[in-house]
């Protein structure tokens, strides 16, 4: 029998929800199970309701599930809030201390589904209430069928430094484990023995940071903003072993200008922010555009406008980033859909940004950044980094060097300041080939045309949307992090005999027009699936190809898609047509 279990651990911020989740995830990962863990939290440090949901399977999992098999409720609020999502055979483990409202449960639920366990009391007995989360982890793992040794091993790495703390945690974990030993749990499975990890367990943020390292990013300047901060925190961990500097700027305006300065001076540089910070960076984006300076910018989307929902997810910035900053200039926009793709995209973004001397924007979102994913492929590090820079030796006459020399491809040889005799002059003003301000009609036209000329080559670099049963009658079309949910929805629909496939974009701008037309040529209709209110990708496809979407499935509540939601809504759309 195949395994597909969803565990949700919920409580207040400050109760160590994430620690329980991480431990469970790591135990499962270690024995070779697949998993996906999403983080749902409010914008506060203590209190409120937060939860981590882990879907565990022996097959790769691509999206969160809509039903909960096992709910670990560290407070009664968690039980009440998630009641509706419980699977028919689901089980709630409720902290007995908090269990004042147990009596209010429907008769049947009280009997069958809710198991009060003295989590906090056991933690106190083991040495401190703080270990309530360890007790809960123990209970959860026992129900899933894990041997205690697997749990113990992870505890040992988690609390490696302090012997006493480790000892107490093992005691705490043991009591949770033993407390449920004889409980029947419908989704308990034969725990794989002697398995080995099926890939790395990484957050999306982490995958982006590792991709930046592999791309030889040397300077990362940022101003903290959820959900982008994690990327920079992960990068900062490498400052002691690699030539990478993470600099906290005074604001996003500074961050983007810093990376432009660093890139002009010759190193690869990155900044990461969310929509609000990206708004502040819009002018700097234009600066990179007119000075033709490579720059890589990650925009991890969260719902807005303005501050919006700081800790939630969305896909509302697509049209914004494509058009951000005044007038026109070429840029790349990518939206990776998996951690492996995010890693590869970082390497490509740095490469292409430098090759074409244009900014590259990577669109991710809170769901992608904050979830724990399993990478299914090895993350390859390039043997060499191809640098597109010219030194004196590459020039016939360095003293005649012109930074913006006109070429057919629009790409001028890029020299670096103070690295030879060639002088490198750049300005935010419109300019001549040498980089001096110029307002002549000839220079203006020449420079606009030179910059626009790059688009042809850039378009050639773009991958078309990835088809999944792409020959189907109806296609679900989306982009970025909804990749997995769309693919699983397609599986569900096909299982029910609907002729449905998926098409997911990871390369968005310059728009892969020809490849998109091809991908859409054989389907009867396509339905867009996006986390915004106007189907921004749908509008873009219509603008670029003339093809219109049949309808769109839009969700903008700030929570990630589940395959079930997409499948159910697709069914109603298709049944209407029939």
């Amino acid at each position, binding site marked *: 029998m195949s395994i597909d279990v969803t565990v949700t651990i919920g409580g207040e911020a400050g109760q160590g929800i994430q620690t329980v989740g991480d431990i469970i995830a790591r135990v499962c990962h270690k024995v070779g199970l697949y998993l996906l863990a999403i983080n749902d939290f409010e914008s506060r440090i203590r209190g409120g309701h937060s939860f981590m949901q882990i879907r565990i399977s022996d097959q790769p999992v691509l999206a969160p599930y809509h039903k909960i098999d096992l709910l670990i409720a560290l407070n009664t609020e968690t039980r009440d809030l998630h009641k509706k999502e419980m699977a028919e055979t689901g089980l709630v483990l409720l902290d007995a201390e908090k269990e004042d409202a147990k009596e209010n449960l429907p008769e049947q639920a009280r009997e069958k589904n809710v198991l009060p366990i003295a989590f906090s009391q056991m933690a106190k007995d083991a040495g401190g209430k703080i270990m309530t989360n360890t007790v809960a982890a123990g209970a959860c793992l026992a129900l899933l069928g894990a041997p205690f040794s697997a749990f113990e091993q992870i505890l040992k790495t988690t609390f490696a430094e302090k012997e006493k703390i480790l000892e107490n945690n093992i005691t705490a974990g043991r009591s949770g484990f033993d407390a449920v030993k004889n409980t029947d749990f419908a989704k308990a499975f034969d725990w794989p023995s002697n398995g080995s990890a099926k890939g790395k367990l990484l957050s999306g943020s*982490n995958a982006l940071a590792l991709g930046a390292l592999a791309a030889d990013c040397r300077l990362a300047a940022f101003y903290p903003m959820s959900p982008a901060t994690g990327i920079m925190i992960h990068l900062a961990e490498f400052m002691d072993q690699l030539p990478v500097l993470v600099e906290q700027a005074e604001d996003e305006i500074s961050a983007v200008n810093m990376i432009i300065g660093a890139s002009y001076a010759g190193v690869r540089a990155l900044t990461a922010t969310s929509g609000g910070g990206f708004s502040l960076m819009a002018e700097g984006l234009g600066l990179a555009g007119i000075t033709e300076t490579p720059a890589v910018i990650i925009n991890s989307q969260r719902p807005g406008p303005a501050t919006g929902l700081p800790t939630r997810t969305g896909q509302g910035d697509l049209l914004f980033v494509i058009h951000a900053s005044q007038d026109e200039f070429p840029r790349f926009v990518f939206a990776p859909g998996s951690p492996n793709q995010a890693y590869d995209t970082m390497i490509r973004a740095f490469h292409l940004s430098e090759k074409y001397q244009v900014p590259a924007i990577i669109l991710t979102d809170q769901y992608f950044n904050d979830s724990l994913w399993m990478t299914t492929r090895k993350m390859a590090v390039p043997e060499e980094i191809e640098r597109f820079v010219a030194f004196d030796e590459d020039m016939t006459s360095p003293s005649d060097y012109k930074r913006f020399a006109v070429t057919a491809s629009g790409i001028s040889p890029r020299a670096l300041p103070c690295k030879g005799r060639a002088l490198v002059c750049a300005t935010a003003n419109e300019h001549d080939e040498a980089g001096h301000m110029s307002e002549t009609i000839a220079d203006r036209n020449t420079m606009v045309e030179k910059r626009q000329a790059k688009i042809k080559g850039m378009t050639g670099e773009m991958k078309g949307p990835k088809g999944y049963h792409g020959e189907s009658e109806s296609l679900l079309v989306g982009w970025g992090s909804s990749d997995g949910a769309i693919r699983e929805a397609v599986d569900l629909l096909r299982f029910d005999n609907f002729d449905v496939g998926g098409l997911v974009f990871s390369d968005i701008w310059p728009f892969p027009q020809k490849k998109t037309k091809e991908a859409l040529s054989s389907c009867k209709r396509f339905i867009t699936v996006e986390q915004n209110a106007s189907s921004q990708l749908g509008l873009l496809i219509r603008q670029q190809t003339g093809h219109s979407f049949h309808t769109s499935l839009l969700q903008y509540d700030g929570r990630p898609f589940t395959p079930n939601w997409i499948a159910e809504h697709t069914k109603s759309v298709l049944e209407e047509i029939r």
Partner: protein
Amino acid sequence: MKDTTQYNNDYENKWCPGCGNFGILNAIKKSLADTQIPPEKILMVSGIGQAAKTPHFLHCNFFHGLHGRALPVATGAKLADHDLTILVNMGDGDCYGEGGNHLLAALRRNINLTLLVHNNMVYGLTKGQASPTSRHGFVTKAQPQGVACQASNPLALALSQGAGFVARGYCGEIEHLSQLISAGISYPGFSLIDILQVCVSFNKENTYTFYKDRVYTLDKEEYKADDLHQALDLTMEWEEKIPIGIIYQKETRSYTDELAPLQSGPLFKQTYDPKKIRKAISDA
């Protein structure tokens, strides 16, 4: 005297005849000649405004960026390659207005940049609006009733933020100004040189005559520039007498010396090592 002509270029200068910026430009050339930095070893970074056009009138590398944003660009370039000699040119509106937050950060960061603020107490390029250093009561087309804000005191601000090199120059004292710039270049941390600059077109108050009557040079023998309180007092002098010279200077260690990843040399020069990266990734 060293040869300043090597910093000339034939790009047409469009400043108004008589503009104080010409004096500053000459002082920069003189200082560069004195410190013997060849054109290809200089990087000028500027914002937007009349002052910020200065790099175009010099033979050197330059990045003429956005209004108010020269300091972050210069900081990024310096972090990327701390061997670079970087001079930053900004106007008073550019630096103290639009770029105020960046100035605060740069002062605290103490990164080795030499900042020259062409302080004409008015917005030149946008034709005469008030700037942060315009006098209270200063009348312009945009402020016909007179400026209602207090004028900012950038030198006192810098001192209060812990700046290690704070100086004031005057566009009419070229030799003196060039020495200040040279001192700023050799200072290992962040140096702020606020330069009194005459704008003949839009500031009819702070004229050459105004400064001629007030400006005096701090005596290097008498004034030691190492006493913060005395320095703060000096920054308050304005109505009757205006001191120029190094107002304050203290020993310092550059920001780039503090950062661990830069200890094996400039980021730009360090080598790409796929083995190390592979290890870092597999350990992650």
